[in-house]
């Protein structure tokens, strides 16, 4: 027993050592797993012996037209590539260790020449089309930008005419100061995309004479889009999921949607409406008449918040523009269908307004109508669903949601009316409660009057 403290100390020490060893093993395993990607980047950033800046960073060497070759680290400070350790020769090739101009820029040293804008996509694609290389930065990298570009409107025109001034990679992304798309100052940040496109597409001179599928491309897209509900959502409400140019036209392979594929572009976000439209017989009529799907009624770039007035045959209703005149083979039966749909929608709206008024009245009287108010959301949902169902161009799907909405308003009405009845009941209850109390008080007072008057007694008792 004399050795007990020694044994205890040894046991504790052994425990501590075992714990430390265990922690070290865990740390080793973790570091092996996590630093593989970092090592690749560190490998790239370790080459600091580039001699490019020795000439290109020297201000005195460049002037006039050649000033664009004057590049310092300041120019590159915010550049996405530079920050990841990608150096001049990683993009431009050549021999960065040589101080000899010809040797440094020789084809033998792999120097990549950009002689026309046509060379730029390939120049960027050197890395961006290389899955193996790009996997250093992302486990599932996108490497289709270059191939997409050549199939898009810009790429095709560039291929046809390298000097046409068509947009290429650097037109949108810039070059020695490329920012990531989540940088708010980047030209490709969602809020800036429309303006970036507009630098060319709002230029009347640049767009003059350019056709797409036989129609002049125009230069008012940005102006129109700026007034749209989409622009309002994106620019004013800051909803970055709201569509800007690239969401409908594509990114690197940008094209204008074909007349028959407009609905598909819209359906990317408006899924349910897209489904209904695609299964509607009207879709084929639109195709036959070469009408651009959704854009026929809602417009192209200047898409405004749709109102219920668009439906029906009244002034301002889009249905009327074809069905009243029988344009594009529109029928009278179709016009009646549109009228009926408009009336059903109006009926639900009026019922909802009436239910809301009842609930509000009950609430103003101090009644608890939270559930009825909450249920009203379902009526509004039904109304919105009915508006969506319009795109089936048939009464039946719409009728179902309208019926659902009407039954909800009926339920809300019942709850509001119950609250109003309860309010009346409380008043009656109160009156019934106060009458006996008043009687009891009167009787008590009368009884107290009959009691003997106060007398002088010993209060100390």
């Amino acid at each position: 027993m004399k050795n007990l403290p020694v044994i205890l100390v040894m046991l504790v020490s052994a425990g501590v050592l075992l714990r430390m060893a265990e922690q070290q093993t865990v740390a080793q395993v973790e570091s092996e797993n996590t630093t593989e990607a970092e090592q690749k980047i560190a490998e790239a950033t370790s080459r600091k012996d580039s001699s490019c800046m020795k000439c290109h960073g020297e201000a005195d060497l460049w002037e006039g037209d050649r000033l664009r070759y004057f590049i310092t680290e300041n120019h590159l400070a915010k550049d996405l590539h530079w920050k990841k350790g990608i150096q001049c020769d990683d993009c431009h090739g050549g021999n960065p260790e040589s101080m000899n101009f010809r040797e440094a820029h020789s084809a033998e040293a792999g120097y990549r020449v950009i002689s026309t804008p046509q060379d730029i996509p390939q120049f960027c694609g050197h890395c961006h089309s290389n899955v193996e290389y790009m996997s250093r930065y992302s486990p599932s990298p996108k490497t289709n930008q270059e191939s997409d570009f050549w199939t898009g409107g810009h790429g095709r025109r560039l291929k046809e005419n390298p000097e046409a001034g068509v947009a290429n990679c650097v037109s949108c992304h810039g070059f020695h100061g490329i920012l990531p798309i989540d940088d708010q100052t980047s030209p490709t940040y969602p809020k800036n995309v429309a303006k970036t496109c507009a630098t060319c597409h709002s230029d009347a001179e640049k767009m003059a004479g350019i056709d797409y599928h036989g129609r002049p491309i125009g230069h008012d897209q940005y102006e129109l889009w700026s007034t749209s509900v989409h622009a309002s959502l994106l620019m004013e409400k800051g909803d970055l999921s709201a569509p800007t140019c690239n969401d409908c036209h594509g990114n690197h392979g940008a094209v204008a949607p074909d007349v028959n594929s407009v609905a598909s572009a819209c359906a990317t976000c408006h899924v349910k409406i897209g489904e209904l439209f695609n299964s509607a017989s009207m879709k084929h009529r639109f195709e036959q008449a070469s009408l651009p799907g959704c854009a026929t009624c809602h417009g192209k770039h200047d898409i405004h918040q749709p109102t219920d007035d668009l439906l029906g045959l009244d002034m301002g209703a889009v249905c009327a523009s074809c069905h009243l005149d029988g344009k594009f083979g529109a029928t009278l039966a179709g016009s009646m269908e549109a009228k009926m749909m408009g009336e059903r929608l109006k009926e639900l709206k009026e019922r909802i307004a009436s239910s809301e008024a009842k609930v509000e009245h009950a609430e103003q009287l101090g009644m608890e109508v939270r559930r009825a108010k909450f249920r009203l959301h379902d009526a509004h949902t039904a109304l919105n669903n009915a508006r969506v169902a319009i795109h089936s161009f048939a009464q039946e799907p719409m009728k179902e949601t309208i019926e659902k909405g009407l039954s909800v308003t009926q339920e809300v009405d019942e709850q509001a009316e119950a609250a109003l009845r309860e309010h009346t009941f409380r008043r009656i209850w109160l009156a019934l409660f106060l009458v006996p109390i008043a009687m009891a008080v009167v009787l008590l007072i009368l009884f107290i009057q009959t009691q003997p008057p106060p007398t002088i007694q010993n209060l100390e008792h």
Partner: protein
Amino acid sequence: MSHEVDEYNSKDEPKETSGGMDHSPSDDSSDWRRTKRVYAYCADRLGLDLLVDLGQKKLVPIHRTTPFYYLGGMALFLVIVMFGTGVLLALHYKPSADRAFDSVQSIMTDVQFGWLIRSVHAWGAALLIAVLILHLLTTYMMRAYRRPREYTWVTGCFLLGLFMAFGFSGYLLPWNQLAFFATRVGTAIVGVVPVVGEELLIWARNGEDVTGDTLARFHSLHVSIFPLIALVLLGAHLFLVQKHGMSVPDAAAKAAGGKNRVPSIPFVPDFLLRDAVGWYLAIALLALLSAIFPWELGEQADPFGSAPEGIKPEWYFMFMFQALKLIPAHVFGLEGEMLGVMFFGFCGLIVLLVPFLDWGQRSRQVLNGLAIISLIFAIVMTIWGYLA
């Protein structure tokens, strides 16, 4: 055992005829004889004689300020209403952040007369504090705190503080937006108490911020800890009131030519009947308020939502809330809010120690001056708080 029987036969049996049941108009009826037997059975075992004696001997002096005596009875009645309605609410209330609001909503809509119980409980709380404040002021004005009633005053002050704490803890329980943010502001004030503020804040909130844990803490305080303390304090207060009898103001004693020359009425039934009139009126007022102005439920608390406009505490905290808002951030290099809290703490201490500070004409004048200034200050601040 036989001794007990003998004692019962010899001592208790005669009491049966000399207790509280000896003034019947029809002593011979069998019903009355049966009632007397039941009373004798209970009196013997439950000590009812003590209460009957107390009722018969307790006298209430009648003078100009006698109506002030009703305030104590009114407060006691409201406390009973609060306990009763509180117990009924507890049957349906669910004290967790995700269910509290729904359960109160259910009380208001699904539970039969739940709306009435909740509204009576909420209005009753406001009325109780008002009555307690009036009771304190009138007791001060009548100087009923003088020897030997110092500790009646002290227990009364503690009871007022406790019922204010009841109000503060109960305010959060519906877990609505206004209560949530008001509690966040209210508990933050506790945090500025010197030395122990931070610990006190964490204890009160049951954590760093107001969360579901705070709700659980406030609920346990509101329904178990505070009621236990209240029963003890109330018991002590009532015992002392019975022990020392009703205090007679100097002016009334002087006008009657001596304290024992002041006319009086028996507590039972004369004063009790007058009390009952007040209680009936209180019940009627509570019913009226509950039916016409049912207590609002508001929106469910959203800890991540923005604070609603017009956060305000219960009316009886408003003067402190408004004053703390007006104090500059720093006063003489010290934190303004901390100074404010210390000032109100000091004022509370002065009120508590009033019986021990009233030792002469001069000190009484100082106390009266302070009382008038404090009252005006509280009224102005409360009005300002509601108008701001």
